[in-house]
């Protein structure tokens, strides 16, 4: 959202997911011919701009289209008012009030639920464009619309959320990033994206188009069901608190997995908000050291770099050093590379990162990487990458906001042809 915020600052027409508009341009005739409706949280911080671009595409193709926008998620304009009224927007992880970083806030959006999206479908929209909403709401909204589910149909809403959660990371449900028997999963180059077939009682089948790659299996679906969740008995969403410990996952034929039994509990009085704020600067430098003694050379280079930074008097909030190819991913779980394999490591990448509030210090660090190739341990590569880039850190501030402070707003727009 903060990237989109910057895009809109440069051009008031931007600030949404532009690739969504390109995608609509490619598929619009199919959408019309096969009467397919689309819901997308592609609006970013400018759903109206996204709507204008989609209507423009429709006009150029001569295809009439009704587009709904769902807005009200953007709470950036009201932040000071909220804070003044004692709504502290405390960081859900640390408990700190937002006032601590208020001056650095770049974007603030509430995750809206499925009902406004369903309302947009009810108004007859062919394409629904939202700003920030819960990802799973995109899947639940058509179920609410089609089956007439009510706001207190907790079990059915929970079933919809479970299905939505399974497909919200696309092909991670259909064999992508799947650890169970990954080497046997066919044709990942043409992987099929997940489809949910929903029943009025909340029973859902996850599947994919015939002839596509990947695999929908009990294993692939279970892995995704557990992906990025907290307490599985209370998966909190805007519309319901879903209980994943009640769901049955069963095979239902080739590339078909059935989800049944989901129970839900009443929704909370809050929306989750995602707030982004500027939190200093970072840079990462990398050098590749080759056999022989690749690991020892990378370690020696680390020492040199640390000594140089010390001598320059540069102070950082954090320095992190990793040895890719030796132990970077699994840290202590993998321990140091075993002494008997160290002599055979063909190459090791020294990855050296620094973080600071002080941009000048991070920038000075980036000039220390290239000299290492000429002044340090031998048989080293990596200069081709150029000097490391100083990146502004945009950090994420999760908070809760009372639902009464957010007013989702649905508007229907008709293309003029």
């Amino acid at each position: 959202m903060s990237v989109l915020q910057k895009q809109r600052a440069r051009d008031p027409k931007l600030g949404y997911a532009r690739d969504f508009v390109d995608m609509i341009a490619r598929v619009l005739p199919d959408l019309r011919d096969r009467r397919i409706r689309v819901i997308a949280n592609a609006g970013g911080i400018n759903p109206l701009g996204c709507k204008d671009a989609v209507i423009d595409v429709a006009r150029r193709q001569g295809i009439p289209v009704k587009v709904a926008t769902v807005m009200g998620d953007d709470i950036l304009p009201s932040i000071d008012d909220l804070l003044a009224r004692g709504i502290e927007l405390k960081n859900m992880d640390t408990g700190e009030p937002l006032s601590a970083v208020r001056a650095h806030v770049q974007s603030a959006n509430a995750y809206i639920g499925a009902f406004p999206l369903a309302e947009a479908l009810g108004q007859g929209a062919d394409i629904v464009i939202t700003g920030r909403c819960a990802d799973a709401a995109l899947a639940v909204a058509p179920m609410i619309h089609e089956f007439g589910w009510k706001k207190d149909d907790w079990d059915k809403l929970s079933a919809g959320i479970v299905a939505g959660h399974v497909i919200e990371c696309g092909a991670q449900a259909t064999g992508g990033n799947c650890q169970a028997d990954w080497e046997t999963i066919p044709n990942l180059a043409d992987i099929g994206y997940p489809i949910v077939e929903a029943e009025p009682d909340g029973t859902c089948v996850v599947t994919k188009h015939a002839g596509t790659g990947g695999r929908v299996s009990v294993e692939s679906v279970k892995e995704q069901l557990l992906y990025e969740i907290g307490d599985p008995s209370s998966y909190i969403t805007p519309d319901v608190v879903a209980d994943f410990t009640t769901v049955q996952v069963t095979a239902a034929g080739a590339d078909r997995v059935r989800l049944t039994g989901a129970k839900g509990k009443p929704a909370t009085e809050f929306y989750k908000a995602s707030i982004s704020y500027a939190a200093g600067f970072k840079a990462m430098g990398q050098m590749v050291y080759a056999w022989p003694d690749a690991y020892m050379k990378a370690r020696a280079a680390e020492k040199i770099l640390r000594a140089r930074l010390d001598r320059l008097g540069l102070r950082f909030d954090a320095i992190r050093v990793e040895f890719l190819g030796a132990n970077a991913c699994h840290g202590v779980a993998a321990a140091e590379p075993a002494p008997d394999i160290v002599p055979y490591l063909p190459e090791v990448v020294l990855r050296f990162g620094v973080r600071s509030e002080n941009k000048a210090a991070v920038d000075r660090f980036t000039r220390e990487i290239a000299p290492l190739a000429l002044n340090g341990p031998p048989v080293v590569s990596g200069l081709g990458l150029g000097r490391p880039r100083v990146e502004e850190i945009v950090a994420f501030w999760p908070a809760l906001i009372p639902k009464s402070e957010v007013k989702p707003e649905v508007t229907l727009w008709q293309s003029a042809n």
Partner: protein
Amino acid sequence: MAKRKLIELAHARSGDKGDMSNIGLIARKPEYYPILVREVTAERVKNHFTGVCLGKVERFEIPNLGAMNFLLHEALDGGGTVALKADPQGKTYSSALLRMEIDVD
């Protein structure tokens, strides 16, 4: 009792929420699930991730899926965009956990 690597009995997927990593651990067969529950305790996981997970480890049982969910607090160097790690989202922690050796009857 024989020692087996967890990867022989389970598969897993991991991800992030801020500075917290979650690892979903799933039994490859229903009969393995009680072994996982017995052996892969929150305490053992915390110990396994010494130096990586600086906070507590929470464990949730999900018997209907033959699975458990682990939350590793303060495990991602600040997480997301803040972290300097090669893996700031803990995507590789799943197989880090599967390196664990456990006792199997």
